[in-house]
């Protein structure tokens, strides 16, 4: 059964509610602003691609992002010619920026799949106007993430035989008992399935652009991409079937990806890594940081393209609440880490925690506690959730906090291991920073292009939120995908 479209605005049993209830409901913003029709939502989103003047901010933003993309190119060329010795990581810190950034980016991607798949299965209608660009964010974030382990091999074209199972002339096969191989499969599957899901969602909107475009070039390009979609009821029926099943498949997939990423650490015996609660801890952290990135992107986007009637305060509030919930899970995991270090009675575990808090990298630990455990408590306050500019700043800080968390887990655990004679400090080089800022440039460049060239909001799904989409004679409403 489909849900009523505006349950909170027009409750059928309004008389039985208390005054406090009514006041609370009146303060809940709507999913899309009233007054929209099928045509107006179409024009609003398609117009960004086809007719509107591109805002000057787009050129500025894309220019800066493109500059950093060039930094990435330079770094990669330098890396391929010289080798990974240009990075700062060395024994005992064999994993540093490369894996920190990998985990950071892949975590960011998780929010996109959560919005597009899990919230779809839970019939959360508010997901509808943010799922498209959140999924795009997922794809771009995973692309950035995959670059780090690939380039960490030094010469990826020589590493193919131990990354992927293919019959090679050496007759060697990947070691399937290694979590690193699970990671290769998890990340490539995740990217591929996310791409299929995203493109499936785009097909009807590409048909809309094909039919709306005025230029021959636009009609042809979107015509080819739309694959001849004509909105037939027979097609929609099959389309809906696979859209739901793809969501069902993506749901365990997205949980498996960060679980497998956490296995990279948990399966080893390094103090600070060897913990059974890593999978849920990592998944919660991933969703937390991912929603922070969705917020970071949504706030400027809705301002620049005046999308606040489609991405309403309802979305902003809900995203903040998800950040608060998952952030609290992460904070609980921090407490757990401290407790287990003490409760294990293990000298090395206890030293690891002591070194985290009071060792040479101690300030980073306290910064991440300040952000991820203390600062997010601000999200409890409605005044904070209503302040979009403040939320933008706080979500940037959350991204910083989650990056620091991975730094602390990876570098601080490695730099002082079991044997004091092998202890050493780690410092990144300029090429580490070039690679990191370069992937941010790649991510933002792709996102700027996406917003300009493809419908950033799922038009056909937003149409189902328009009141006219409900059939008049009672019964079930149009299917809210």
């Amino acid at each position: 059964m489909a849900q009523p479209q505006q349950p909170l605005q027009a409750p059928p049993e309004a008389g039985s509610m208390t005054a406090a209830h009514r006041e609370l409901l009146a303060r809940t913003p709507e999913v899309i602003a009233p007054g929209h029709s099928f045509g107006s939502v179409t024009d609003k989103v398609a117009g960004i691609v086809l007719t509107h003047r591109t805002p000057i901010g787009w050129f500025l933003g894309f220019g800066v992002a493109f500059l950093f993309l060039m930094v990435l190119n330079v770094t990669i060329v330098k890396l391929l010619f010289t080798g990974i010795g240009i990075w700062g990581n060395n024994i005992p810190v064999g994993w540093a920026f490369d894996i920190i950034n990998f985990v950071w980016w892949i975590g960011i991607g998780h929010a996109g799949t959560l919005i597009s798949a899990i919230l779809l299965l839970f019939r959360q209608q508010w997901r509808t106007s943010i799922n498209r660009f959140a999924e795009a964010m997922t794809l771009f974030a995973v692309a950035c993430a995959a670059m780090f382990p690939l380039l960490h091999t030094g010469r990826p074209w020589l590493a193919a035989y131990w990354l992927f199972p293919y019959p090679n002339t050496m007759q060697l096969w990947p070691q399937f008992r290694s979590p690193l191989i699970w990671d290769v499969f998890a990340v490539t599957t995740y990217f591929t399935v996310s791409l299929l899901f995203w493109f499936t969602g785009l097909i009807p909107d590409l048909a809309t652009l094909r039919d709306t475009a005025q230029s021959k070039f636009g009609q042809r390009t979107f015509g080819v991409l739309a694959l001849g979609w004509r909105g037939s009821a027979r097609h929609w029926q099959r389309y809906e079937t696979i859209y739901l099943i793809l969501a069902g498949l993506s749901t365990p997939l997205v949980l498996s990806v960060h679980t497998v990423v956490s296995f990279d650490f948990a399966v080893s015996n390094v103090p600070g890594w060897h913990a059974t609660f890593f999978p849920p801890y990592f998944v919660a952290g991933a969703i937390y940081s991912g929603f922070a990135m969705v917020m970071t992107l949504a706030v400027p986007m809705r301002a620049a393209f005046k999308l606040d009637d489609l991405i309403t305060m309802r979305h902003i509030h809900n995203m903040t609440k998800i950040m608060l919930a998952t952030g609290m899970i992460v904070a609980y995991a921090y407490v757990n880490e401290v407790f287990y270090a003490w409760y294990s009675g293990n000298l090395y575990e206890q030293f690891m925690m002591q070194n985290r808090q009071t060792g040479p990298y101690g300030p980073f630990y306290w910064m991440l506690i300040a952000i991820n455990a203390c600062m997010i408590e601000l999200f409890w306050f409605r005044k904070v959730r209503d302040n979009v500019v403040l939320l933008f700043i706080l979500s940037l800080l959350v991204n910083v906090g989650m990056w620091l968390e991975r730094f602390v887990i990876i570098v601080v655990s490695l730099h002082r291991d079991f044997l004091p004679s092998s202890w050493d400090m780690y410092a990144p080089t300029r090429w580490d920073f070039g690679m990191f800022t370069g992937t941010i440039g790649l991510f933002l460049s792709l996102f700027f292009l996406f917003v300009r060239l493809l419908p950033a909001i799922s038009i056909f799904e937003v149409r189902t939120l328009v009141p006219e989409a409900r059939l008049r004679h009672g019964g079930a409403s149009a299917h809210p995908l």
Partner: protein
Amino acid sequence: MAHEPETAMIHGLMAEFDNPTDLVDAANSARLAGYTAMDAYTPFPIEELDDALGLKKNPLPLIILLGGIAGGTGGYFLEYWTQVITWPMNIGGRPFHSWPHFIPVTFECTVLVASFAAFIGMLALNGLPKPYHPVFNVPAFDRASRDRFFLCIEAADPRFDRHATESFLKDLHPLGVSEVAA
């Protein structure tokens, strides 16, 4: 139907509506009037059309299940064959067939092949990509991807009659009825 030259040239007749309720009502009327070869075109999925048009359940869930099973068994077999038969290695004294290690990749392969089965299966059953289709000949059809709802009764229907069907469609109070050139 070569003996009926006036219907041989067209794909069908198409009625245009401006809201989903009228379209579903029209599709119900057409089904009750005995038409079977018809289709509706809408800018978003409308669940009620499945019943109104008398659409059958589609086999995609079964196709996806088979894809998932193939992916899962294929993935596990690949691991078993490489780790146990063709290149066995002693890793920390574990048995060659250390099946718990093989679960993550088996799971990923299941999801991967099932997703491809879903995507390719949907396109194949829908006959896409298909750049040309007669319905695109109707000028108003541009709005089928925007805000208009169409019901097309095809000339292939045994009850189709150029004039009777047209007056039947006009009785449903559409915005207009147009001929779909083949």
